[in-house]
């Protein structure tokens, strides 16, 4: 009797314990994967198709702000940060070290500038294709100026009547007349104009360009820094950095004689054999003599340690120190300008040529490396020069550093502890150079802004000098498996898996949980707004004609086009790929296969060069130069007019 009771009781207690345990476990599980309170989910929310968390992306609630660029009010009291993922400008009271306001601006704000009276801020909305004019007293947007195509860096003319904008996607430098709110002029930039800087006397505007020119096939990357006469709106000089790209930050030293830019030196012409001694990539700065335009490249790396993804560069008001943020390895390099100037003075021309390759120089002018939290990006030095503020983008925080002791002072969390979603964890991995040998590069070193560096690479496994492939943008690839140009990787998990680490990062591969985080980040990447698509979805006459050509089944003289050779067959919407492999006669003698993955065409307007090895520098060349035998669709009956229409239509994908 009692025995039975006891048995029941025992069973009950055990069952209860089990339930409690399961409850706790599932709570933590859901919390981990959704970053949200589990109440709202059932197992079915995520585990229906069991596919790499497709639904997961639907249910997770990203709450991050991702501070990118910083400005301090002229009185030094307030700090402003653009919150990339928060579509807002965050205002911080530096005395109280607290967030005082969040001002909603356009989509994906990038850079901001503040007027001399500290009452107005101009914010570039990267994906809003606009400039938000913010009244800082009222704390709201008073005007939105439409502009360009992915506006990036900003700079205000001395008289504050003109706003200069780096137009990233449009390869333009725009001058906006602030009184009329109209774009006064579009100047030709280099490849993806990025950050801007104005000389102290307001006469000269410098613009960095993130990407290399799309030069001759397998040519060395050549990336320019553009000089514009800020008084006449005329480009005056183009300083070209050979074998360098990802020129992000720029600062002009208070003396007004030198400018510093950050840069990355890719070794895309070398087969990717190993990483030691910067064989795959090296990271540094460019020093430009503003008078002569002479440019010198210097590495910030060391023999056994690399500092991936230099992003921001600022100097103290007295020009004594310069700081470079390494967003890939969570470090700030502190540069002793006196030492740097000394070093440069001591160099003859030949030495300058070599400098960009030398790993032993940085220790002569870098006096300290200051660790930060994840992904340090924009920086600003307070007007009094006492503090350096660093946007720790993937930590949603701002780090204050004492410029005298060069020690971190305090960290301002922009919001309560952020909920770590898989997507966010993935983003951190994606941006971390610490997952490559000696911290040499991160995923984004080859996929800036999650797109492509426009370069071609020669990987080890298929033999050196063989199977050179063009880098591909990550935008819109979520459902376009298989991956790789040879279409051998059936999933992103495979693509970013063991093989990847063996031939590229040369360190141990991501753990499976890390991998699924990374994949869910890549799968979550949204497409930027397509400038060639009209808001109402209507096609221009030219695009409409192009659509007919794209979908046509007969040539102009009425002959039937075999189904296998129609655009629409291999590139059907919505992804514009049939996810198969095809031989379009694009293979060259150094290719081991003739069939290549049919690429998706979404965002194709932004992914030059084209074809598997990037031999076509423009969309037109795919057909004018590399389709002589009509193996890549039938174009023999097309006129230039037809081809233009087709290209205009393709750009809308």
């Amino acid at each position, binding site marked *: 009797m009692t025995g039975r009771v006891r048995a029941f009781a025992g069973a009950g207690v055990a069952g209860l314990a089990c339930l409690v345990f399961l409850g706790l476990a599932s709570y933590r599980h859901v919390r981990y994967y959704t970053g949200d309170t589990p109440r709202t989910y059932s197992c079915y929310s995520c585990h229906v198709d069991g596919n790499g968390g497709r639904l997961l992306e639907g249910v997770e609630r990203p709450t991050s702000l991702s501070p990118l660029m910083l400005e301090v009010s002229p009185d030094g009291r307030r700090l402003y940060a653009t919150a990339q993922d928060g579509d807002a400008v965050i205002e911080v009271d530096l005395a109280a070290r607290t967030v005082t306001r969040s001002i909603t601006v356009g989509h994906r704000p990038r850079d901001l500038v503040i007027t001399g009276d500290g009452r107005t801020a101009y914010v570039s909305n990267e994906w809003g294709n606009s400039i938000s004019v913010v009244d800082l007293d009222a704390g709201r947007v008073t005007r939105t100026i439409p502009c360009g195509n992915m506006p990036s860096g900003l700079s205000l003319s001395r008289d504050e009547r003109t706003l200069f904008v780096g137009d990233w996607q449009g390869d333009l430098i725009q001058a906006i007349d602030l009184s009329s709110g109209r774009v006064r002029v579009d100047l030709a930039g280099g490849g993806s104009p990025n950050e801007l800087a104005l000389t102290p006397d307001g006469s000269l505007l410098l613009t960095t360009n993130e990407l290399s020119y799309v030069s001759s096939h*397998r040519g*060395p*990357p050549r990336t320019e820094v553009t000089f514009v006469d800020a008084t006449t709106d005329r480009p005056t000089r183009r300083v070209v950095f050979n*074998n360098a790209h990802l020129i992000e930050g720029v600062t002009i030293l208070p003396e007004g004689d030198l400018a510093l830019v950050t840069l990355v*030196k*890719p*070794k*895309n*012409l*070398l*087969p990717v*054999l*190993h990483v*030691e*001694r*910067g*064989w795959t990539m*090296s990271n540094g700065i460019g020093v430009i003599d503003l008078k002569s335009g002479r440019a010198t490249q210097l*590495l910030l*790396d*060391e*023999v*056994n*340690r690399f500092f991936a993804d230099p992003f921001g560069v600022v100097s103290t008001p007295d020009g004594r120190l310069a700081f470079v943020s390494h967003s890939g*390895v*969570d*470090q700030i390099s502190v540069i002793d300008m006196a030492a740097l100037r000394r070093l440069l003075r001591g160099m003859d021309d030949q030495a300058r040529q*070599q400098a960009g*390759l*030398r*790993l*032993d*120089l940085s*220790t*002569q002018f870098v006096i*300290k*490396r200051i*660790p930060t*939290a*994840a992904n340090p990006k924009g920086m600003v030095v307070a007007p009094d020069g006492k503090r350096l503020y660093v946007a720790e983008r993937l930590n949603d925080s701002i780090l204050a550093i004492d410029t005298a002791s060069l020690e971190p002072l305090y960290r301002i969390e922009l919001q309560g502890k952020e909920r770590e979603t898989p997507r966010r964890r993935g983003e951190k991995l994606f941006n971390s150079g*610490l*997952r490559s*040998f*000696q*911290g040499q590069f991160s995923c984004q070193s080859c996929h800036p802004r999650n797109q492509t560096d426009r370069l071609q690479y*020669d990987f*080890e496994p298929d*033999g*050196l*000098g*063989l199977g050179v492939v063009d880098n591909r943008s990550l935008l819109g690839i979520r459902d376009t498996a298989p991956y790789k140009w040879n279409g051998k990787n059936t999933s992103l998990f495979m693509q970013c898996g*063991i093989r990847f*680490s*063996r*031939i590229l990062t*040369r*360190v*141990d*591969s991501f753990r499976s949980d890390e991998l699924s985080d990374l994949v869910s980040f890549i799968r979550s990447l949204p497409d930027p707004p397509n400038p060639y698509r009209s808001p109402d979805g209507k096609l221009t006459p030219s695009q409409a004609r192009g659509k007919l050509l794209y979908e046509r089944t007969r040539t102009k003289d009425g002959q039937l086009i075999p189904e296998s050779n129609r655009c629409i067959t291999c590139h059907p919407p919505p992804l514009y790929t049939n996810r198969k492999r095809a031989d379009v006669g694009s293979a060259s003698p150094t290719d081991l296969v003739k069939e290549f993955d049919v690429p998706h065409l979404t965002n194709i307007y932004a992914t030059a060069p084209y074809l598997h090895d990037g031999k076509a520098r423009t969309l037109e060349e795919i057909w004018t130069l590399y389709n002589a035998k009509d193996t890549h669709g039938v174009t023999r009956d097309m006129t230039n007019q037809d081809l233009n229409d087709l290209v205009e239509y393709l750009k809308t994908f």
Partner: protein
Amino acid sequence: MDASTPRRVIAVDADCVTPGLLPDGTIVFSRLERVPEGDRLIGTLYALRAGGSLSRISFGSDLDLVQKILSDGRILVHRRSPLYPDGIDLALRPDGTELERFLADTSMGSVEASAVGDGRIQPAGPDGSERAPAPSWLEPGYHVIDSIHVAPRPLPPVSTSVVKPQMDYGWLLCLDARLTDLNADLGRAHSVRVVDSKSGKALGVEPIARDGSFYLKVPADRLLRLELLDDQGRTVVRQRDGIWVRPNEHRGCEGCHESRYLSPENRSPLALEQGPESVIEQASAAPVEGRP
């Protein structure tokens, strides 16, 4: 493995010294043996994987001693040989690939350095002047030696490997054989001879491309010596110590005793245009005169 209860890991038929524990649990150590010729003691490096598999990872005929596991996952090796009586320091990956002279970064620039037993290192100035041994962590530059790493997460181990034991060859790509900091004029270099350092047999001679590059397919896990010849076939310069490649390793060199502080220039080596020249088939060539 905590120190409390020592247990036998594996039986090796010789003295094994200087064990080092890699982040992934692999133990690397040096296996000592005495060779008759010159009655020298040589130490060969082995890696004992966590699974228990033992593999040889060095192929020299010198005394190689595991000195330290570097924070980037490589092994710091101290080598003593007739060539380097005072010893030199080398670094290689745990799979035996990418062996190269080890350089440390110091505030005075990178210098050749050697670690003394207690984890301190003995830097020699660029002029070769000795400096007093200093605890590594006092030197801000010594990140690699330094056991505590400043990054939030230590660099991952490099147990990942391209080595395929079943293969018996690898490749050797040199970007510019004429690039050197030896005070020899390598401008005359016209072709490269690969010599099996043990047998002294020449495995083959291949011309150097216009840009100084050459690309060879060579037998794996054998100590090889490279010699540069001029157009008359006369030796311009001879590698004194050897080099090896692991099976399936693509070994890349920038030059021939070039400055170790240079990272490679970004240009496509001409030698790649006509694939690797195999020097395996010719392995049965005559001994080369005057090898040291």
